[in-house]
């Protein structure tokens, strides 16, 4: 017979005294009960120290708290960080307030229901085992994939925090897509100069090992013990041992090359940037002639990405102010949701940049060697009416489609992280954890996650830096063994669990030293291939447990027996 201690929490009167008394009477008659104490507010630190003292006496197999929602205690216990002399997994909560008292019309029914809940909880806790905590040393070594603006910034910041970085770039030089820019939209500097400075800092920092013309070939291990095999310029292979990995491999762009898009007066943003950076004089010359009219055609592709909007407004202002051009911007929506963009947009309007909003795609045609753009403007006039406008342009600047880099898919396979709908690397939770991947210890940042402007990438770089620093600063990672565990003897190595684990925490491994399977009779050790859950990477969701066709996996803190107890269906 297990010995269970009971604490009844009246939650500052929200469980009425009369009800509580009846509960106490019921509980005290139960055979498993070692003691039953009442508290008014169990989550207070005073009550917790009283509880601690009571538990020090020992001799208990579990504790049942009778009170409100377990969520309440879980958060407040964590907040109070009260070390109790009993393993936290031997606690269970009988939620009689939310689930009985408050959900039942009559007190009699509520009481009956509360009794059932209590008896179920006692059964469940009798099946509980203490669960240990483990910790994992984390060396301050990080691998960053991608030497673009995001990767460079993260490397720089991590180095400042005393973390050693391997910065791996597949190309010959650092800088990435940002080098296609001439000017920032929100700072006065020239991009090239600014980048050169950053690159030289990275190159000369002893905390940063720069590896160009290098690619990731293979990745093994988990958080804190990643083994990354990389291949250098002369096909040399090296294995880097790192604690965490950041993917910052950027994006690629694809230019439309059909029909009129091949025309030399239809250009893309990087070409205009180049032209602007190379022209000194008071006017923009092309083929010996002055450029007077430039039309930007946005939202043909990348409709929900704001990069083109930002660059179009930025370039338009330069064209209007420095080169006396007339600029028209055609779009479905002007996207100003970036720092300082609203102001820039207003300035562009003041300086005479024309904005047209369209629904039907504008038509391009060649008229006297120039490009005529026909658009039905829907902005200025009443709904449902469209105002046809023709703009004879010297240049039409169009968007390139932003797509994942060709390696993105294979990278997601190597890192075992998810791809989103459009084939970019996916974050774990778009609302909360933008830079964490689904795997503990692997981060995704910058345009490999979603095409973005330099300033946004810098924000993500900072976020990654904070996350990685927070993870590595303690030197260890501590976790409960409240995770899934495979019984290698039952495992049929069917690969169901590694395929379904949302956090890529399961691999098939050879069990050698630990979990040795002894062939019966021979006494000889056999290396047994079986699935293995990395406890530091497991989030304890239980998907693998439910799917395993051999029933070889157990969720340590929520076993079949505990679930059947909750169902009220234990024999």
């Amino acid at each position, binding site marked *: 017979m297990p010995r269970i201690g009971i604490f009844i929490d009246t939650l500052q009167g929200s469980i009425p005294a009369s009800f509580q008394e009846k509960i106490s009477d019921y509980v005290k008659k139960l055979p498993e009960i070692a003691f039953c104490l009442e508290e008014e507010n169990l989550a207070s630190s005073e009550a917790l120290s009283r509880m601690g003292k009571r538990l020090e006496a020992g001799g208990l197999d579990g504790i049942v708290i009778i009170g409100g929602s377990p969520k309440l205690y879980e958060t407040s216990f964590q907040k109070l960080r009260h070390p109790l002399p009993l393993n936290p997994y031997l606690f269970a909560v009988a939620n009689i307030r939310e689930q009985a008292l*408050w959900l039942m019309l009559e007190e009699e029914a509520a009481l009956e229901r509360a009794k059932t809940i209590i008896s*179920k909880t006692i059964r469940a806790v009798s099946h509980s085992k203490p669960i240990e905590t483990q910790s994992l040393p984390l060396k301050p070594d990080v691998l960053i994939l991608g030497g673009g603006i995001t990767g460079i910034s993260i490397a720089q910041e991590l180095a400042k925090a005393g973390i050693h970085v391997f910065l791996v770039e597949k190309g010959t030089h650092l800088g990435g897509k940002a080098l296609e820019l001439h000017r920032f939209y929100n700072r006065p500097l020239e991009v090239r100069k600014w980048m050169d400075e950053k690159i030289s800092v990275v190159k000369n920092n002893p905390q940063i090992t720069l590896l160009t013309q290098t690619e990731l070939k293979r990745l093994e291990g988990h958080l804190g013990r990643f083994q990354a095999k990389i291949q250098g310029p002369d096909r040399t292979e090296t294995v880097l041992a790192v604690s965490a990995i950041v993917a910052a491999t950027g994006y690629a762009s694809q230019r439309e090359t059909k029909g009129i898009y091949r025309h030399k007066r239809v250009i893309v943003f990087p070409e205009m940037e180049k032209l602007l950076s190379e022209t000194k004089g008071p006017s923009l010359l092309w083929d010996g002639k002055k450029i007077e009219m430039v039309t930007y055609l946005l939202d043909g592709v990348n409709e929900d990405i704001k990069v083109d909007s930002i660059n179009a407004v930025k370039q338009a202002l330069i064209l209007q102010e420095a080169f006396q051009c007339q600029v028209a911007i055609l779009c479905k929506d002007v996207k100003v949701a970036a720092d300082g963009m609203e102001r820039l947009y207003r300035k562009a309007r003041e300086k005479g940049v024309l904005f047209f909003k369209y629904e039907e795609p504008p038509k391009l045609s060649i008229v006297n060697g120039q490009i005529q753009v026909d658009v039905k403007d829907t902005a200025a006039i009443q709904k449902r009416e469209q105002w046809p406008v023709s703009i004879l342009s010297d240049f039409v600047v169009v968007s390139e489609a932003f797509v994942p880099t060709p390696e993105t898919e294979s990278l997601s396979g190597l890192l075992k992280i998810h791809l989103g709908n459009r084939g970019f690397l996916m974050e774990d939770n778009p609302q909360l954890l933008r830079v964490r991947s689904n795997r503990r210890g692997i981060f995704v940042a910058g345009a490999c996650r979603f095409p973005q402007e330099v300033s946004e990438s810098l924000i993500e770089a900072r976020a990654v830096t904070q996350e990685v620093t927070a993870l590595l600063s303690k030197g260890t990672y501590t976790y409960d063994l409240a995770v899934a565990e495979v019984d290698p003897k039952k495992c049929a190595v069917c690969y169901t669990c590694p395929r379904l684990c*949302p956090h890529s925490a399961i691999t098939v491994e050879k069990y050698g030293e630990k979990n040795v399977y002894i062939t019966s009779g021979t006494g000889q050790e056999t290396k047994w291939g079986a699935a293995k859950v990395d406890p530091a990477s497991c989030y304890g969701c239980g998907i693998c447990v*439910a799917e395993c066709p051999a029933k070889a996996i157990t969720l340590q803190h929520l076993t079949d027996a505990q679930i059947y107890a909750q*169902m009220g269906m234990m024999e």
Partner: protein
Amino acid sequence: MSAFDPKIVAFCCDQSGYPAADMAGTLKLKLPKNVEIVRVPCAGRIETIYLLKALEKGADGVLVFACYEENCQFLRGNLRAKGRLSYAHRMLEKIGLEKERIEICHLATNSGAKWVETLRRKSEQLKKMGPNPGKL
């Protein structure tokens, strides 16, 4: 002879169903009497056998409260649960039990009213259907 009060096992995902149940309590909404709440970390933890065992061992109906699709903290736990339900449904149909005895309901943390409403509706539906003839 008391009226038939159907027994329902309600599996509640800790990310949606369980907080919704708490919310229902806080709102003091009234629940049918005979509901067993089972708290799971994710609907993906709910094994097919739990759905069947619930019926076998005495429940008249089973409800799985899971997060909305594409909103699973564990990416596809709720979809796995849906797949397992369809397996259980196939089996119930073949053995002549009403597949409506097992149902999934997608909701969010703040769906206290929906949580209670779904259980009330299920309870009414089961009353009409009568006791589960498969329970031992």
